[in-house]
């Protein structure tokens, strides 16, 4: 009895601690939401009054729209390219008969371990030579470098857990190697591909270091615009932009969990 009580006291303490940590992690993010409704021309906490002007500015001002569209385009293309290359590389590493698989695997994951600033510097040198700085293809290549490791982490884990007899069964039942991939392997690793895609998209949308080095002078991404605004003057539009993204992120998570649920039923 006594033992049980002690245990529940411990549980309450642990629960309280976890709640505190959670609040500490999430609160600053949440606070940007009310701050975006302030009437003042600068970022203030607590916000004064209620106004939608900063949201309006974010959604109508070209200064904000253009970088947003550029960032979304960049993230979308990066995601598709990373998924294709990452999935194919994962298949080769898990299924293929290759010498030095482990070293190759590490090689593909290395952009995750090397400090981004080092990668940025290295890529800058090469891009300068090939005149890729400030171009969409250049940005896609740069972000794909850091996108591929995310894809490969998820997809290789998926493939290692994959029951190989399913592919053998498909072959035995008359499906060619390609059809086996399309009808059996791909649908079964789809949850992994979706998860990897979300990681990639967010990583690209959020990335600033490579952008600072490679964006040149004519283009702007959203994080760069926000960074510039904060540097220049602390505009509440930054909070409004953040709010829109928080809502979009929450929406994505809810949508994904609904997709998962729908599948289970």
């Amino acid at each position: 009895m006594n033992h049980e009580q002690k245990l529940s006291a411990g549980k309450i303490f642990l629960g309280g601690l976890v709640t505190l940590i959670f609040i500490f992690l999430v609160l600053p993010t949440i606070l940007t939401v009310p701050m975006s409704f302030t009437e003042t021309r600068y970022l203030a906490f607590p916000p004064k009054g209620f106004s939608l002007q900063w949201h309006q500015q974010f959604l109508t001002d070209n200064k904000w729209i253009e970088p947003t569209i550029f960032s979304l385009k960049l993230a979308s293309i990066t995601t598709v390219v990373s998924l294709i290359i990452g999935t194919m590389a994962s298949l080769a590493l898990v299924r293929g008969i290759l010498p030095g698989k482990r070293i190759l695997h590490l090689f593909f994951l290395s952009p995750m371990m090397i400090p981004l600033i080092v990668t940025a510097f290295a890529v800058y040198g090469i891009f300068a030579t090939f005149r890729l700085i400030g171009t969409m293809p250049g940005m896609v290549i740069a972000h794909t470098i850091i996108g591929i490791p995310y894809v490969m982490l998820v997809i290789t884990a998926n493939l290692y857990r994959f029951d190989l007899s399913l592919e053998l069964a498909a072959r035995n039942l008359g499906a060619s190697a390609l059809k086996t991939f399309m009808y059996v392997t791909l649908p079964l690793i789809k949850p992994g591909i979706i998860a990897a895609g979300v990681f990639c998209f967010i990583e690209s949308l959020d990335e600033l270091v490579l952008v600072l080095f490679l964006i040149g002078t004519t283009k702007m991404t959203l994080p760069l615009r926000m960074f510039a605004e904060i540097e220049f003057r602390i505009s509440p539009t930054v909070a409004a932009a953040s709010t829109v993204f928080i809502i979009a992120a929450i929406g994505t998570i809810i949508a994904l969990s609904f997709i998962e649920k729908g599948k289970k039923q």
Partner: protein
Amino acid sequence: MSAPTKDPILQLIDLKKQFGDVTAVDNVSLDIGDGEFLTLLGPSGSGKTTILNMIAGFEFPTGGDVILQEQSINSLLPEKRNIGLVFQNYALFPHMNVYDNIAFPLKMRKFPKNDIQQKVESALELVQLQGYETRFPKQLSGGQQQRIAVARALVFDAPLLLFDEPLGALDKKLREHMQLELKHIHTKLNRTMVYVTHDQEEALVMSDRIAVMNQGRIEQVGPPDELYDKPTNSFVANFIGESNFIEGTVIEQNHEGLTLQHREGLKIKVDWSEPVQAGASIRFCLRPEKIFFADDSNAQNCINGIIEEVIYVGETKRYMIRIGETETIHMREMSTRIGRGRQKGENVKIGWFKESLRKLE
């Protein structure tokens, strides 16, 4: 080795598979008759699954050939072989419902939609799972999943069906039920089936012929009763059923058979007509159920012994009886047998008829 009763549909010719230094399959030759139910029986690692994989096309033989319907299929990709296969773990596609699982081989063969529906329905009827079309594999029990796997292997009318220990994951009752059901399907469709198992009982129940495998080789091929009654070597005698092995030196041969000198000083009579050299050492197999208590019997072989152990196993009782100093003989008796129960430590006289001994290689 006995040959199939009909023309062979499948021929393995000097089939060999080497994995590095390990020889998994060692020059196996076997003809399998059209419509036959043949079982590859052996302990794990005996090469039976490797043979199945070479027939299905998942492994390429190091040597030899696989002939299906008089054509070598060695160089064909698995998807071109048109052979049904039921996997040990069923290998149903978890993202497809029952209907789509069974329809898969038909869709790959580009059957018209109406044909597919009709064939899927009749396959489901055969395995008695009509009405399960929209269920997903994980919503089915192990036995039901197994039936769907069988239906999927049958549905495209392949001339040959392979089974890779398909009942291994089921409990004993269900396994016995499925054995009979598969046997019924075999009788009904008259399709050639090659079945892999390590379970001798399963092999005895289901097969027309059994090929007993050991260390990559076939030890003996024959119908179940022949393998049980006339094993040609110790491995088969031991793997199918239980056996006592009795060794002795030939001291006499006449029209009644052989007389052997056993090392415990006993003389043993054996029914054997082929000439044997006097003084040769010969090994025999004696099934435990062929031995009986012989207090007042006219059996040619009677031996005194002491009961070392009595084990009650339901329908039978097992006795371990020590003969002389070094030999222990296993004997089995039906529990229903009337008479006094024998106790551990009791002195008994046991006997067997000379026909009960089988000479081994």
